[in-house]
């Protein structure tokens, strides 16, 4: 009898390295999207806060679309239809674009809430000291409102980090995609998904710990 050909091979230390690299890619795509998305989100949040009817007609519906359509649909649609309008983006860039807009849409409402949390008399007091509108915004509204909604923002950021797993459908080898590749080869889904989960946890936990420390510091 011929020796059987082995299609599958066991989990090795190299595979752990492979997962680690993928975790770095998850971290990278998340960090980029969350950072740019937060900046844009605060900007949109300010437009919602100040813009009144103009914002209701423009920014608000645009953000609603990205908040309401499942991320996986946005990713697939964008990745496949962007080339039609001449945008040839690789899976990473497509992922960043969609995750960024998605983050911005979520952060916009958080940011608006934060700005609304600053009482009007506080702003009047700032203006009465001779501060301009922008000084008041920069030194009073953003720090006070930012602290009020910081926990909500952390929630958004951690959510986006986990949702970045969906970029795997475009073929970008981040944690989830890397796990799928290894599962196919080793046939050990239990072990590998547990490891992947541990990596996600290792990425999230320091952030939530650090956030808790900041909140404690601000609460004094």
């Amino acid at each position: 009898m011929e020796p059987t050909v082995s299609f599958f091979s066991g989990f090795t230390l190299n595979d752990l390295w492979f997962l680690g690299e993928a975790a770095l890619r998850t971290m990278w795509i998340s960090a980029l999207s969350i950072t740019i998305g937060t900046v844009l989100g605060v900007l949109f949040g300010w437009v919602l806060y100040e813009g009144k009817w103009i914002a209701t007609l423009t920014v608000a519906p645009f953000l609603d679309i990205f908040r309401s359509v499942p991320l996986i649909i946005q990713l697939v649609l964008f990745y496949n239809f962007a080339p039609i309008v001449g945008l040839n983006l690789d899976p990473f860039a497509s992922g960043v674009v969609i995750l960024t807009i998605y983050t911005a849409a979520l952060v916009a409402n958080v940011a608006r809430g934060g700005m609304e949390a600053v009482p009007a008399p506080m702003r009047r007091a700032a203006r009465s000291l001779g501060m301009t509108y922008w000084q008041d915004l920069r030194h009073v509204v953003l720090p006070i409102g930012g602290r009020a909604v910081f926990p909500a923002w952390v929630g958004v950021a951690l959510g986006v980090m986990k949702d970045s797993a969906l970029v795997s459908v475009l073929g970008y080898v981040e944690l989830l995609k890397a796990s799928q590749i290894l599962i196919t080869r080793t046939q050990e889904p239990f072990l590998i998904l547990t490891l992947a989960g541990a990596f996600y946890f290792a990425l999230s936990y320091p952030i939530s710990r650090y956030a808790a420390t900041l909140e404690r510091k601000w609460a004094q």
Partner: protein
Amino acid sequence: MIEIRDLHKYFGALHVLKGINLDVKKGEVLSVIGASGSGKSTLLYCINGLEPIQQGHVTVDGTDVHARGTDINGLRQKLGMVFQQWNSFPHLTALENVALAPRIVKGKSRAEASDIARKQLGHVGLGEKLDVYPSALSGGQQQRLAIARALAMEPEYMLFDEATSALDPELVGEVLETMRMLAEEGMTMICVTHEMGFARDVSDRVAFFHQGVMEEIGPPAQIFGDAQSEHTRKFLANVR
């Protein structure tokens, strides 16, 4: 000098100030009394341009507050204001609360701004609380912090909008004491107040507002002893 001429203010259809004429000279302490809703707080907001006006003029040292092209942020540095709600910035220590505006509005260095803040906090009796956050201060201390914050801009006028109304009764005294000290130092002050004792003892003149009209103005002795207007007498009889 603050000159107010034929000032009319509306909130929508509501006619809040109905043609106010008033001059406040340098060094003068004016108390404004009257029932809630008589327009006395709105008057202060109109003086430093926090509320737009619909008719008339407010002039501070010759500058029309509401004219187009007036540098309102520059003008407000002359007009310190203390509010009923003290509005301390919760994310900053007492020192930083006071140092913020001198630094970002007047462009002072961090060290200069801190020196000013230290001096003003000492002035209002908070020299021991420099690094404390407002949440750890009592209402009276926070109100004195607000006074120090306004003084740090080296204003020429101070506007007090019911500075003691939101305080627990036992904390009113320390804030009134600080206001009295400023008056004795020669600060020009307009105090909207419900503290009749303060109005009587500290002010040079007292103005009584009734339904958007300045019914009567005069020295404390006249207003409290020999009021000309029926409304004034009625109001004073009720608050005593």
